[in-house]
């Protein structure tokens, strides 16, 4: 409820740099690093809302994103010729709505639980959905999944062009970031943090704690859906391997590396993750990616449990404690 930091010099400089990035970068940097960072960031942003501000660690964000991605293939067009070929705006809206319903239902299921049980129940959903898509050929085309889900041309901008795709992702990332940064300080957001710190007390103040939690799941699902749609446009395909347990945990790793204490953590974590993902291969062989990201994860969690932004805060604002309320 304090002063806004949306218009600080750091934010303006970052925005300018990001907007100018296409002047310097080649297609690899624009898409594989830039766009991928924004997409991971958007999906992880939902997890930061849930976990950092709501105290609910969900491993199902990637499943929700995946359902949105699959919906793009199923209701739109794909190279397997199995798509329904609906008009693009209808497909996009359907994908977002279906994914949001899915994510909200996951919320309904898991808000009865707390802590480790939330992790387990959402992991169960993620695992179940992964195996379901792999075995179901009628809807999800099983193991193969779908390819040929092309990014569209919108208003004359061909989104298959790396520059335009980069800007598209940047716009959604910026919009999501601003929305969540605003939301966490809104009445809803402050109440959500109250629920995180002391759910019983919030209930005794007149708040419907479950409704607050489920609403947070719904909002996180919209973010996951946006990320899922951008992902299929970027990769031009989707199959079960992109929504398995590995990718589900990657989102948690991203959020924790960046830091759960502020929305910006999602994008910092996403950038570090994406860089390691792309360049670990230069250091050691491909199979060792998990070792590298695991080491980075361990290093950050050991030295700064509140992620890179926690470390940053301690470095530049000594004495300022973390944003988390301690009321236990």
């Amino acid at each position: 409820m304090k002063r806004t930091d949306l218009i600080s010099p750091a934010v303006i400089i970052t925005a300018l740099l990001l907007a100018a990035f296409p002047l310097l970068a080649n297609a690899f940097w624009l898409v594989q690093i830039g766009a991928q960072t924004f997409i991971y960031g958007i999906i992880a942003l939902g997890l930061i809302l849930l976990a950092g501000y709501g105290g609910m660690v969900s491993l199902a964000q990637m499943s929700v994103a995946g359902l949105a991605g699959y919906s793009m293939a199923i209701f739109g067009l794909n190279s397997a010729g199995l798509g329904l070929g609906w008009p693009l705006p209808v497909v996009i809206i359907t994908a977002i709505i279906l994914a949001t319903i899915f994510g909200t239902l996951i919320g309904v299921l898991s808000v009865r639980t707390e802590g480790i049980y939330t992790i387990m129940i959402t992991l169960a959903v993620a695992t179940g959905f992964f195996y379901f898509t792999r075995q179901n050929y009628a809807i999800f085309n099983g193991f193969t999944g779908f390819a040929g889900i092309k990014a569209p041309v919108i208003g004359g901008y061909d989104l298959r062009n790396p520059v335009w795709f980069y800007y598209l992702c940047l716009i959604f990332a910026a919009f999501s970031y601003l929305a969540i940064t605003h939301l966490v300080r809104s009445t809803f957001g402050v109440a959500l943090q109250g629920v995180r710190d002391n759910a019983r007390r919030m209930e005794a103040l007149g708040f419907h704690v479950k409704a607050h939690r489920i609403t947070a799941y719904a909002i996180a699902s919209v973010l996951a859906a946006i990320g899922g749609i951008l992902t299929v446009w970027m990769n031009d395909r989707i199959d079960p391997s992109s929504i398995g347990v590995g990718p589900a945990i990657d989102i948690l790793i991203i959020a924790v590396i960046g830091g759960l204490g502020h929305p910006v953590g999602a994008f910092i974590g996403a950038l570090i993750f994406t860089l390691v993902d792309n360049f670990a291969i230069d250091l050691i062989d491909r199979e060792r990616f998990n070792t590298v990201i695991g080491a980075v994860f361990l290093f950050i969690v050991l030295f700064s449990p509140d992620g890179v932004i926690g470390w940053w805060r301690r470095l530049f604002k000594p004495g300022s404690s973390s944003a988390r309320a301690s009321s236990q």
Partner: protein
Amino acid sequence: MSHDTRQMDRHPIGGSSFALELADVGRKFGSLVALEDISFSVRAGERRAVLGANGAGKTTLFNAITGDFPPTSGRIVFFGEDITHLAVHNRIRRGLRRTYQKSLLFGGLSVLDNLYLAVRGVMDGRFSPQRPRPDDIASTRARDLARFVHLGERADMPVGDLSHGQQRQLEIGMAMAGAPRLILLDEPAAGLSPAERTQLVEMLNGLPGHITFVIIEHDLDVALKVSDKVTVMNNGQLFREGTPDEIRNDQDVQAIYLGGGTR
């Protein structure tokens, strides 16, 4: 028209002459019977003290009434409405309030933010995507409450930095949010200095007459100064009910009470 007045219209004062009626309320924790067949009523506008040794079941009684730990048997009627199976937040929205024996505050938030949440909890707009502004209704009421419990000057302090006595005051301020009709006070004077106790007694006696309260209090002096009627509990059961004078002079009460846990 504010939400609070609408709430009053729905449950008009005087619609029932009782603020609270308990019928055979029981609560078990596993095999432990913490409350057994408690039946009693509190009139609207009455101030009732509940006494009893440690472990007598006083806090459990409050938990049953608010739904924090709902009763395992019996019925609870609040201003004529059966609330036995109502969710906690719905009881609160009907005008039931409580304070906790061990302060349950948001330690990382400021005094004002704690009060803001309390005010917002019983108002519309709990899901508002708008930021609270210093001049909106809820914030204004939160500031009024801070002054009411003598924390006006400390409104922006983190709650963790308040003294024990100030935290107890804040608990009461949070219970005063919105339009309380019945407040359950769980040992509000515990750990207070004599001066703070006097201040508390004054504040309780200064509450508007239409507010009913039930106070659990080990300090007989405080309890008897603020109440019209006293209920004594023992071993999860009702033991005595009477005026402060009757209770003060009751031999049996003195035996269990003084033998039990006067602090």
